[in-house]
């Protein structure tokens, strides 16, 4: 009971979805709706042709863009949250960038910086930075004045305040930004790859779209969903648990 059940239910729920998918594809008998077995066969063919290389290329881009966006977005968020002046001056920019369509950023980056890796990763980062900044800003606004006073009385320098007082208070906001961020970043990376890269999951999906090869498209999509879920379960969740050890 309890723990065991909570691990079983997601599997049951996913099995239900696979069953429904199998039923639909066998009833409709369409070339454009292959069943799970056909997708597995397509994946086997793709594995012989560099499936994991493309997955890896996309994963590297996701990692680079994610790390850059978290670092820059957090710094901006902390600055805007802690300084009312900074927020008055730059808050409007944040709203603008939050509402800038991803596609526009991507095309502008490619136009201005060429069809390069740097342009691709920059475009994805720029799309994600405003979200991280907005989330972390909320946390920085709510920083405890009590603990700041304590740090002042006991003469902690700025580095000690950051490490022991400020960043731990922002941890839940980093976690929220990271979780939303990962899902958003990998979706945008696919678009970037589709528009201007010659490898990666996005590029492959585009190539198979031109052949209307839905089984291969699903094979790539499902493969990457598994990778992102694994990161969530193996990296983000253990980190969150460790960061929340102190809670009652």
């Amino acid at each position: 009971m309890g723990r065991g059940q909570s691990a079983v239910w997601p599997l049951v729920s996913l099995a239900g979805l696979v069953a429904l998918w199998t039923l639909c594809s066998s009833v409709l008998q369409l070339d454009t709706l292959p069943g799970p077995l056909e997708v597995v066969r397509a994946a086997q063919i793709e594995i012989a042709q560099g499936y994991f290389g493309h997955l890896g290329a996309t994963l590297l881009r996701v990692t680079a863009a994610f790390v850059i966006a978290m670092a820059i977005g957090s710094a901006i968020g902390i600055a805007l949250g802690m300084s009312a002046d900074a927020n008055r001056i730059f808050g409007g920019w944040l709203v603008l960038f939050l509402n800038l369509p991803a596609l526009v950023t991507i095309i502008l980056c490619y136009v201005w910086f060429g069809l390069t890796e740097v342009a691709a990763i920059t475009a994805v980062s720029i799309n994600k930075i405003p979200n991280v900044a907005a989330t972390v800003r909320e946390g920085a606004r709510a920083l405890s004045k009590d603990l700041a006073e304590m740090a002042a009385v006991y003469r902690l320098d700025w580095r000690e305040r950051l490490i022991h007082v400020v960043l731990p208070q922002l941890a839940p906001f980093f976690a929220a930004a990271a979780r939303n961020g990962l899902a958003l970043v990998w979706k945008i990376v696919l678009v970037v790859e589709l528009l201007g890269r010659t490898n990666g999951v996005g590029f492959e999906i585009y190539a198979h779209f031109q052949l209307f090869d839905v089984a291969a498209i699903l094979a790539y999509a499902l493969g990457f969903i598994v990778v992102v879920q694994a990161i969530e379960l193996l990296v983000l969740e253990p980190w969150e648990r460790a960061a929340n050890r102190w809670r009652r």
Partner: protein
Amino acid sequence: MTALSVDIQSKCFGSHQVLGPMAFEIAAGERVALLGPSGIGKSTLMGLIAGTDPVFDGRVSRPNGQIAMVFQTPRLLPWRTLVQNIALIPDAGGEPTARARLAEVGLADAADQYPEKVSLGMQRRAALARALAVEPSVILMDEPLVSLDPASAQAMRGLLTEALDRTGASALIATHNRAEALALCDRVLELDGPPATLRKDRASPLDRTRRADAAAVDALCREWYGDVR
């Protein structure tokens, strides 16, 4: 020798004046109570003296040595263990000292616990240990015994007295409790207001040994304040 000298003209929050003119000095080693009802501005005054709030008319001369503060709430970092909370203070002398200070307040076994996993009384004692760890020349304490059950308050009072005896630090203790002020301090400053001003500044006739006797404290309390506690 003067450990702390306070001369305040006024302190306002917006148009609301909280503190009126008041001046006093605290001698080295002296224990002074700041007595007044809740909401009179004791914590505000403590903030001015500690230097956390620099916006006021007047002057505070702090000692050359460290000034430590025991806040009304423990203000420990919840994501650091009790020993880490002390060891991370720059002048606290690192982890061995932190453990020794915690042992002095009876927290040797709880040193590696997180603050939210121990009782309020234990958090209060850890906050006291943190204040003592910086070897202050002046300790400011804001309601150090409030919202503790009688047994914990009794234990905390004992620890406070013992710590002040041992370190010889001056202390300014804000409290709304008259008996508590008389049991802990050499001198009682009474605040009245609003805006808060100094109504009385009296030395206690009880010496440090006689103060430990609850009956003597009760008797003085009746003499000074009538029957009200």
